[in-house]
């Protein structure tokens, strides 16, 4: 995490904030802060995964049957899209280190497109579930054929968690879109605090990798259950 070469001018660096002594200290502080924030995110999603683990172990067969209504191809495509976006973010961070502005802009741009595509596909999936009355509530299970024989109560629990977890993940994707778009504009305008210093780009990258990682767990847990 060494800072870029000309960041060592004492206090003259435009990207240096007043509370820090030098760019090294600032960048290390930023990265420690970001990782600490990601710890809180792990605890946040971890709680939901605990709930998921407990309930799935309690209602294995019903959850297996209920999950059959999920659209595996769409989920799979979404997984690939997110993996691509993670790759482009990694390339963007590397390009930021080398100060290759065009590459950064292109790669962040592709990431944004991927994020929107992910949300679009997720939206289609949600629509399908709503149409099939698979959203929890009094109307749940009005079309029993989509429950594939699962007990409606336990299936409702499953879809409660499905919408809760993928919904919170989608919120994180939306936040990611906002942050990446903001970063893209900064790069586009040649703002010194991102072009001279790659750490802001790296921090956004870390966040996006985390969002990707959550989905890497969500996809097999929700879509790819083995028959118990």
């Amino acid at each position, binding site marked *: 995490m060494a800072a870029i070469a000309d960041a060592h001018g004492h206090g003259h660096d435009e990207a240096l904030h*007043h*509370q820090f002594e030098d760019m090294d*200290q600032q960048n*290390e502080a930023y990265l*420690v*802060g970001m990782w600490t924030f990601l710890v809180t995110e792990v605890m946040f999603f971890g709680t939901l995964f605990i709930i998921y683990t407990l309930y799935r172990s309690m209602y294995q067969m019903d959850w297996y049957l209920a999950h059959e209504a999920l659209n595996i191809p769409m989920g799979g495509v979404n997984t690939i899209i997110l993996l691509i976006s993670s790759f482009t973010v990694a390339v963007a961070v590397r390009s930021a280190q080398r100060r290759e502005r065009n590459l950064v802009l292109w790669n962040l741009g592709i990431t944004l497109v991927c994020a929107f595509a992910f949300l679009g596909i997720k939206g289609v999936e949600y629509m399908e579930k709503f149409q099939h009355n698979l959203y929890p509530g009094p109307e749940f299970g009005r079309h029993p054929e989509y429950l594939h024989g699962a007990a409606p109560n*336990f299936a409702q629990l499953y879809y*409660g*968690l499905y919408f809760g977890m993928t919904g919170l993940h989608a919120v994180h994707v939306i936040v990611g879109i906002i942050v990446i778009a903001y970063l893209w504009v900064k790069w586009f305008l040649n703002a010194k605090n991102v072009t001279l210093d790659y750490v802001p780009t790296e921090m956004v990258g870390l966040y996006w990798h985390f969002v990707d990682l959550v989905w890497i767990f969500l996809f097999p847990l929700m879509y790819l259950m083995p028959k118990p």
Partner: protein
Amino acid sequence: MSSIPIEKGLENSSPHQREPANYLTVDWSLKSWLTTGDHKRIGIMYLISISFFFLLGGISAGLIRYELTSPAGRVLESETYNKIFSAHGILMIFTFLVVAIPAVFGNFLLPLMIGARDLAFPRLNLMSWYLYMIGGTLILGGMINGGVDSGWTFYVPYSSMYANSNIALVIVGIFFGGFSSITTGINFIVTTHKMRAPGMTWFRLPLFVWAMYATSVVIILGTPVVAITLLLIVFERVFQLPIFSPELGGDPVLFQHLFWFYSHPAVYIMILPAFGIQSELIANFARKRIFGYHFVAFSTLAIAGLGFLVWGHHMFISSQSMYQGIVFSLISFLVAVPSAVKIFNWTATLYKGNIRLTSPMIYALSFIGLFTVGGLTGLFLGSLGTNVHLTNTYFIVAHFHYVMVGGSLTAFLGALHYWWPKMTGRLYNESLAKWNAVLVFVGFNLTFFPQFVMGWMGMPRRYHYYYFAPEYQPYHLMSTAGASVLALGLIIPGFYLLKSLANGPKASANPWGAHGLEWETASPPVTTNFEQTPIVMDEVYDFDPVLEHEQAQARKALEPTGYEGYEPGALAEPKKDESDLGGKS
């Protein structure tokens, strides 16, 4: 001491010299406050905000106490009573105790104590205040518009399915408050790791910084869990996502597990900062290095770690397995070990110390007694057998008030009196403050000791009426009388502290003769905290009695500056000063 800044401090307090602008006087506009990144200003903003919420929480406590003076109730409907005690719990915990010491004193002091110019992320710090205010506003909004009657614990399925009150809005408020805590925690962790001044090694950190660090670790690991758990109640109420619904096969006890996974460590979020303050006060007013510095520092971390493994002791009667109960009980007893290490080490620090009974020290000494009672009664509750008898009685109410009020609030008051001259640059009426500290101690014990007795006898908590058992009335009367005394003891400081702002004598850089970087800069400090980055060359709490005596003589020869005299009788000086300066201004 790295001695250059001391001389600077003395220069600044000289009346003949025009003072440089400090962080308070540098800009008077409201906008400069609302957009500030200065950790000291944000600390002051927090102090004002939490005082407001504390007042509201205190008023609800007063209503509860008044209501319980009669076995048949006085003025409130049962439903209103439920809303009032819920409001008391929610306001006191989520908007006062969890926030109070870290956000006010941690914010103000952490950078000063480690010799930094500011926290690592000043804008994030300001954002945490705004998040707190949004959260507080939503909580108040929910309480005014419908109220909450589930208690601060929000147990499902009552809170998620049956309660008709405005639980969703209040929970969203708590969620915002949680984010405010998380941002503060991240800021403290990064600052402690990356912003220490040259020479400020980990084992030269004041114990308050250790406490803040451990607290921040608990905050970032625990708060997200309760945030999402409470949010799931909102999901159930608003979006019908049935996560904990027992009708559909969900597990309400799971909610309790997740809730206490945060809410037990939250107790340590409230008490660890108090331990930190306690270490500062004891060391500086016994004028001795804290006994077993390393043990106290590591016991802080041990409590933070073990604190995550004991949540089940809130659920001994919630259908949890007996074997689970045994393990949780055992680990609960283990937490008592590092807590006792602290108590013993503070006591050992007092031994042969040059003790000065100033007002912060009186709070610190009462903390030792009150926290010991609170902690030991916690062992009664952590034992499986006695827990069944005592749970959901006033015994438990008394226990956690001894820890939270007798511990955290007492330490908060001690800290307020100790660092008030640093924060505001003014000295308050010390003799009045001392009497007030005694008043708080008496009022507190009168309020909560009777609750131990009636809880042991069987008075259940959260009951509106007790006409079925009027023999509890004398205890309730004692408790209410004590609450009135305690209320007085909490109102009086408001007056003399505010009065000191108007016409209190000016404080020198180090009015207590204390040891620590925060005392080496001016009172109040300049915006950048130090004229130049301090270099730390001495150990923490490195008191040298001989040198101190000489310094005191030298300082006395220069001018009378306040409380720094530690010879008997010297404490009468401030009063004299006050009347002098009062006449002039």
